[in-house]
């Protein structure tokens, strides 16, 4: 669905109200209309109030009427404009070796544009955080260079302003959450009424309104992550780098944050590039345009490139069947089977994923989980 208004109407029709509200907020911001944004913030607040007071996914008639009114308002003023993506970051063969310890990040090159999401995956201690900190300007490079494409002869302060980095362990902040958000907006040059409106928008957009008057110790680590994202977004960086943002989130929150990150990156109002590292491979792969797999400081695999075309098909299967029975069905000469902590990873050049799972099911092998990881970085774990 290219038209966001149609998209939102569809969400409403199928009672996916939460997503409809979030997308409507994005649309209102993109439309750049103050009145529309205020209306949508009020509408969102009503939705969240209602959400707390009822157990089921029902909304009042007035909510739907208001939704229709806002959609009509948006329809009248919103123009769909395709934003031309711009390159934000051009990284050329950067490498880093720590003065203490023997870990080295081997030369890596990458490019990130506006509206693009790049996932960095890999096992612990293999250089994901090092790479992200190099990109964020927190670590000095031993080799290579980084071209911040939108900055003209920047000093390092400009670079640090250009890129926002959210570490896995979020540094403690002080005072009320709302004050921090106002402060973040104002240090980015958003003053007065616009500041208030942007904070209200962000509180609604990330569903933080009920926590606005709370402090660090009064909110959970998941909400701290959400808050940190809200805070950083208000500072309007061009590139957002997140180190393990899903680590402290429950499964629903993970899905919500990832979806939101996707929408934020693709925002028509201010599209940004996002680089994130995570252990949640499948979740990251769902939203990322490119995924880098890093092992022992080296980039072993990159999706969406000619070099990443898989040799052989790989599936992941969870079953109580033994390795021998699987091999007996698929043929020892045609497949390789690895037992991987509850899963079997089956690699084959002879069969397609569909054929492999079809053969197993036809032999009445009980499969409780199946995934085609042929084009996923998961096959390297």
């Amino acid at each position, binding site marked *: 669905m290219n038209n966001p208004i149609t998209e939102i109407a569809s969400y409403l029709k199928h009672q996916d109200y939460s997503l409809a509200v979030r997308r409507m907020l994005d649309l209102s911001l993109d439309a750049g209309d103050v009145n529309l944004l205020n209306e949508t913030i009020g509408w969102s607040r009503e939705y969240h109030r209602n959400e707390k007071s009822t157990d089921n996914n029902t909304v009042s008639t007035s909510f739907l009427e208001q939704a229709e009114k806002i959609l009509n308002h948006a329809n009248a003023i919103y123009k769909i404009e395709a934003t031309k993506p711009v390159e934000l970051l051009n990284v050329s063969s950067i490498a880093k070796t*720590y*003065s203490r310890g023997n870990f080295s990040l081997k030369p890596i090159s990458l490019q990130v544009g506006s509206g693009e999401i790049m996932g960095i995956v890999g096992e612990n201690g293999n250089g994901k955080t090092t790479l992200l900190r190099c990109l964020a*300007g*927190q*670590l*000095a490079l031993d080799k290579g260079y980084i071209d911040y494409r939108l900055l003209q002869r920047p*000093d*390092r*302060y400009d*670079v*640090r*302003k250009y890129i926002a980095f959210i570490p896995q362990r979020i540094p403690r902040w*002080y*005072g*009320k959450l*709302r*004050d*921090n958000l*106002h*402060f*973040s*907006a*104002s*240090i*980015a*040059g958003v*003053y*007065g009424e616009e*500041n*208030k409106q942007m904070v209200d928008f962000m509180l609604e957009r990330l569903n933080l309104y009920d926590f606005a*008057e709370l402090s660090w110790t009064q909110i959970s680590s998941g909400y701290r992550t959400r808050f940190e994202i809200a805070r950083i977004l208000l*500072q309007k960086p061009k590139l957002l780098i997140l180190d393990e943002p899903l680590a402290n989130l429950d499964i629903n929150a993970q899905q919500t944050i990832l979806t939101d990150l996707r929408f934020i990156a693709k925002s028509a109002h201010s599209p940004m590039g996002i680089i994130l590292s995570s252990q949640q491979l499948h979740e990251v792969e769902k939203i990322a345009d490119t995924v880098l797999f890093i092992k022992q400081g080296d980039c072993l695999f990159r999706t969406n490139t000619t070099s990443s075309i898989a040799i052989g098909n790989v599936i992941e299967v969870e079953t109580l069947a033994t390795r021998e029975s699987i091999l007996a069905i698929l043929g020892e000469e045609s497949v390789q089977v690895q037992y991987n902590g509850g899963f079997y990873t089956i690699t084959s050049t002879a069969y397609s994923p569909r054929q492999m799972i079809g053969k197993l099911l036809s032999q009445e092998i009980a499969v409780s989980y199946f995934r085609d990881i042929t084009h996923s970085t998961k096959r390297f774990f």
Partner: protein
Amino acid sequence: MKIKRPLAPDFINKWDARLLITKPSAWSTRAHLVLYYAGAFALLITAIGFLLPNDPRNDGNVFLWLSLLSVLSVIGIIIWIIYLLRFNVFKRFGVQKSGDGLKSFGLYFSAVALMTAIPFLPPAIESIRANMAYSNDEIVRDYNTISADIVKLEYDSIVHRWDRSTYQLHISDTVYNESEVISVSDSGGGFYYVSDTSSFRNKITTADSLKKINDTTYVIYDCPEYIFLHSYNLDTYSKLDQIISRDIYDNIIRNFQRPDREKVAAELKGLIDKYSLMVEKSNYYYGFENEDSYKGRVTSRYNLATVAHSLDNISQQKDRWKGNNWVLFLRFFYYITLVLSILVFIFRHTTVRVFFLSMLTAVLLAILTSLILASSGTDGLATFPLLFIYYGLFAVLAITGSTRKNRSAVGGIALNLFIFFTPYIFLLAVGWYYVVLHNKPYETVPENAFDNEGLHFVLAEIAGSVLFIILVEPVFKKLYRKWYSQPEE
């Protein structure tokens, strides 16, 4: 925005909220809150100072207040730094407008100044109350009246004999320098001492009475002691002069007429009561009179020790800020404020680790310098070039540190110390210059070399502060901007 602060009226909360969304640099200094709370506290202290019973005749408890408020001010500054200075535009790589650094420093200075000023309030209030209770002329007039009345009443018991001393002048065989040197012998007392011409001339100028026998022999007469109330410097800021024995002799004794004793006694009692404390007798040992001596008995009879003590307390409280005293207070206040403001400024632009390492470095350098000076046997003169070498070194390291590949602690420490010492660099230069002059042989120093020493120090103080202000934006902020945003490793 619901920002609730204890004891803060609505307008403060509104002001705070407005600053937050319009002027983040100013808001993050929290100077407005400090000015409000410290201002309110200062008003409270002022009100207490004026409402609490106060008797300028008493010793007062101003130093207790001073100590208590100094501790509270230090606590206030610590609370400000720890709990209020948590938001930092610079460390969050926010938008830095031109002049923000200077404005922030000005706000730090104002906040620190107010907190530093609070301990000075009780002494100031005490002075105001003492000046309100007693005028400058009043205490001198009362002192004079008491002294005169005592003499009138005790006329018959006072020994009115003038002491007589004969001074014989001899030109000394030894000539020191180029000045005339004479020997003076006191034939009456039988002792001998050497004086120079100016001392002797001073002696004859201030003598109560002088008789010149010939060109080398003088007889000097000393007026009897008619002053029984010993309190000094009461007339420094009065149009009247404190009377001395000679005045009493001229005005009362020379042509003595019997006074109306009852009237004089009543007047004297009134004045003594005016300056008597609640206690029966002063606990203080005042004056050097032996109680068994004649003067001791007079002092005791009229409770003069207590009166003198009261007068001294009153004059001390009244004149605390007068003359050059206020300059001393001002310097004390200014330098405390300046040092603390610069420390806050540094703290806001550096990492916590490097800030404390800088303090440690300063202490270690002070110890090292002392050891170098002590072990090398050089005098204090060597301190100045050494301090200039340190300053130059800090400047070089600060500038090179900001161009390094990564953020080094050494560069940060040098930058902090370079900034910290900048306001005092002219003062050091002037100090060095005058120490060199003082150490030169007397004859090689021009006669008027020290005429403007005080002025030069004042100018150096002003120039140092101005230099600091000038450098805040174009140099210090830029160096911090480069250093702080460097990669950490």
